[in-house]
């Protein structure tokens, strides 16, 4: 069953998304039958540690999987299955209604083109604007994302911008194109907290003003709390828990979600002698376990956890967890 109830009319409907990598030693499963919906204008956070498969979900939607990657399942976006689209058809979607930003903005900026020209290019190609009109719109948008002295900055190259400014340029690009869905892969991880706060504000503005839906992939529960309407907790390629942000943070149902929250201290928490931890290390590669991928690290596991994959069990409105103990004693 999908982790979230069926939406009347989701913008994106992902079902049983599975990503395998062909490796010299055999197949490695990175994402295992992941299902979720994204509504128009909604900000969904996918949170997980390294090896959880969180970035691979975005890469597979964007058609950017490494060449040894094999994807199955479906991802219906505005009536088209992204996973089944031919490259040319995918190109017509990418950059127009589907955009992606990365942890390192230099990945997506052309170092040889002036920033203003790069911003204007999208408008000229996809909207057919004249050069001067597109340039003016680009400068106005740089000003909108609070790049100081925007007209002069538009004539500069990406290397002349700080990391925070580059990420704001990427968001300016998204604001210009107004995609229906923005995929954001750790967009603020490389930034200082005060700059991160600016970028998170801009992503929120983008969702509100342009009606853009966002899938935000991050390891930072604080970033999810600030920005996301809904959260999906991923571990070992599978969804452990999913639901609206408040109930997931207030009453996490899965032991992994509880462990992650305990390991993330808040400034307002009473101090404890030691931080809460999850024993062991995150799963990295290897064969899929028959049971719950978190079982080897779980402090409350029972015999069934190692053998049987737990089903998604509702724990509240639109809130579900995949744990054998869900519904049992709290």
């Amino acid at each position: 069953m999908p982790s979230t109830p069926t939406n009347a009319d989701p913008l994106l409907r992902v079902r049983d998304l599975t990503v395998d990598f062909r490796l010299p030693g055999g197949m490695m499963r990175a994402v295992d039958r992941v299902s979720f919906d994204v509504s128009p204008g909604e900000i969904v956070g996918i949170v997980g540690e390294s090896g959880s498969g969180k970035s691979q979900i975005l890469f597979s939607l964007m058609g950017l999987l490494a060449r040894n990657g094999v994807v199955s399942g479906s991802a219906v976006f505005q009536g088209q299955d992204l996973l089944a689209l031919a490259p040319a058809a995918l190109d017509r979607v990418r950059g127009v209604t589907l955009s992606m930003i990365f942890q390192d903005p230099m990945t997506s900026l052309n170092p040889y083109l002036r920033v203003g020209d790069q911003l204007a290019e999208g408008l000229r190609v996809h909207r057919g604007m004249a050069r001067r009109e597109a340039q003016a719109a680009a400068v106005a948008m740089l000003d909108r994302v609070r790049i100081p002295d925007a007209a002069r900055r538009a004539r500069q190259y990406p290397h002349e911008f700080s990391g925070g400014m580059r990420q704001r340029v990427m968001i300016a690009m998204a604001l210009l194109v107004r995609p229906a869905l923005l995929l954001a892969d750790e967009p603020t991880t490389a930034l200082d907290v005060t700059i991160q706060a600016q970028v998170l504000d801009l992503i929120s503005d983008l969702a509100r003003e342009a009606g853009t839906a966002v899938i935000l992939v991050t390891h930072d529960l604080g970033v999810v709390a600030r920005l996301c309407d809904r959260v999906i907790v991923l571990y070992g390629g599978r969804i452990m828990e999913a639901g609206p942000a408040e109930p997931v943070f207030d009453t996490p149902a899965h032991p992994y979600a509880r462990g992650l929250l305990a390991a993330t201290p808040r400034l307002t928490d009473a101090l404890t002698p030691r931080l809460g931890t999850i024993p062991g290390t995150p799963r990295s590669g290897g064969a899929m376990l028959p049971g719950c991928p978190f079982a080897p690290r779980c402090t409350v596991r029972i015999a069934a956890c190692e053998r049987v994959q737990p089903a998604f069990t509702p724990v509240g409105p639109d809130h579900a967890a995949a744990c054998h103990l869900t519904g049992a004693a709290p």
Partner: protein
Amino acid sequence: MTPPLIEVQSLCVGYRVPGTGLLGRPRILPIVHDVSFRLEPGRTLGIVGESGCGKSTLGRALLRLNEPTAGQVLWMGEDMAAMPAETLRRRRAEFQIIFQDPVAALDPRMTLGRIVSRPLATFEPGLKRAELRRRAVEALALVGLSADFADRYPHELSGGQAQRVGIARAIIGRPKLIVCDEPVSALDVSIQAQVVNLLMDLQERLGLALIFISHNLSIVRHISHDVMVMCLGRVMETAPRDAFYAAPRHPYSQALMQAVPEPDPRREKGRLGQALQGELPSVANPPAGCVFASRCPRAEAVCHSARPPLRGDGTRSVACHFA
């Protein structure tokens, strides 16, 4: 009265940069300005700040991995600059460092046993192989790694395990101080907590003092006894941990606390749209006044023209015209 473990007096650190223009002479670009503090044995000083604030440069200068341009570092009352090279070399057993990228800090061609015991070749030359191994296994056990890790190689480690090995190497010479330079920022959330707890355990067991350099205010709160906030190479505020977190006095400290996203959706949604505006000044071209003035919501004319001195009462100091 015994002197503190380490006492830093008006320390300045800079890097030599090429001059500008054809005839420009190389000059010193100042990075850290006029930093003073004392640290007692077994205590932790947290140093907080954003990138470019000079916190890592300061940490390295304390261990004389960078040369200070002015000021003094006294190690148990002794001026480190005046120490003969041989004395300094042997004393290095007493102050160690661990780094942000734990894997890059380990030589990929050496077994972990050799990596961990390597400092002993300098500090206690002449130890037999069997003794080196015994000490390495003992240090690995202290950081929670079993003896068989001594025969493994760095590429077999996860990030958290690699940081444990870095800590084992730091403690093998029985140091009194470890400078921890962003030791958990590269690690997964669940592993960060493990490493922080390990450092706190080792502090208790071995009586270590720690200088914990981090941009993560929540983790600094957890591990530190005292906190120092830096911005663009200057100390903005120093305070005992509880006093600082109960009521940070510098507007920059307050802004940092506001900016940190916490796992609390109700509180966080109210913080959207509150981000500081304005740009960071550049290190190469610092402002005449307060380094935070360009972004400070409370800045007045004086903040742009005059740099506020660090003023305080001995336990708590703030560098702000209005604090």
